[in-house]
């Protein structure tokens, strides 16, 4: 888990991860790169992160990956990230490709839904919460009496 101020240096981070595991005998390394698209008049996206819970969330994923002989990694930006640059990268290493393909899919989706990160559009220098693209976390609504987990029939 790596956090950076501003855009990620994608090539350097991916290269370092590859170097770190050159001798680990993994048969598959699947990277994912999230890039800020130019749309809706934005000049950048901006991110807030709550690190203590992000760390706990990621530890859960590391344990799930370890059960399958794999490892997961990610890096994310804090603050403003201009369009056409990267705010988020992740990767899975595993002995075989199938496990890595499945894990990168599940990991990236859960990252979007449950990692404690808040996104803002930056338009004319102003930060506007991306409410329409944001998702209540699992268990949301506990202080209002209706819980997302119950509505979806999910056991916590």
């Amino acid at each position, binding site marked *: 888990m790596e956090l950076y101020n501003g855009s990620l240096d994608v090539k350097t981070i991916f290269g370092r991860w590859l170097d770190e595991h050159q001798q680990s005998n993994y048969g598959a390394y699947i990277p994912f790169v999230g890039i800020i698209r130019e749309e809706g008049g934005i000049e950048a996206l901006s991110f807030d992160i*709550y690190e203590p819970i992000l760390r*706990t969330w990621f530890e859960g994923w590391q344990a799930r990956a370890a059960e399958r002989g794999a490892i997961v990694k990610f890096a994310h930006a804090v603050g403003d990230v201009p369009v056409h640059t990267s705010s988020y990268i992740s990767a899975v290493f595993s002995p075989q490709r199938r496990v890595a393909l499945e894990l990168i899919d599940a990991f990236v989706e859960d990252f979007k839904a449950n990692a*404690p990160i808040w996104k803002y559009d930056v338009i004319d220098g102003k930060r506007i*919460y991306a409410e329409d*693209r*944001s998702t*209540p976390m699992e268990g949301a*609504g*506990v202080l209002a009496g209706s819980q997302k987990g119950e509505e979806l029939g999910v056991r916590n």
Partner: protein
Amino acid sequence: MITVEFLGPIGKPPMEVEAGTLGELAEALKNVEGVSEWLGTSAVAINDAMTADRNAPLKDGDKVSILPPVCGG
């Protein structure tokens, strides 16, 4: 007293509240301007551990975090 912190776009400074459970905290927050409208979609952590249990007990010195809808990546 417990400390309630509001994360991300809620944009409120931390509050000190007397509450023995999350349910009592919900009562204390439901009329707070700038907070109440977030409660239906926010998740909660006690001392950085996520919980969805309205009966979860709170003790003096606990920190409760309110986490509004997220969008990482």
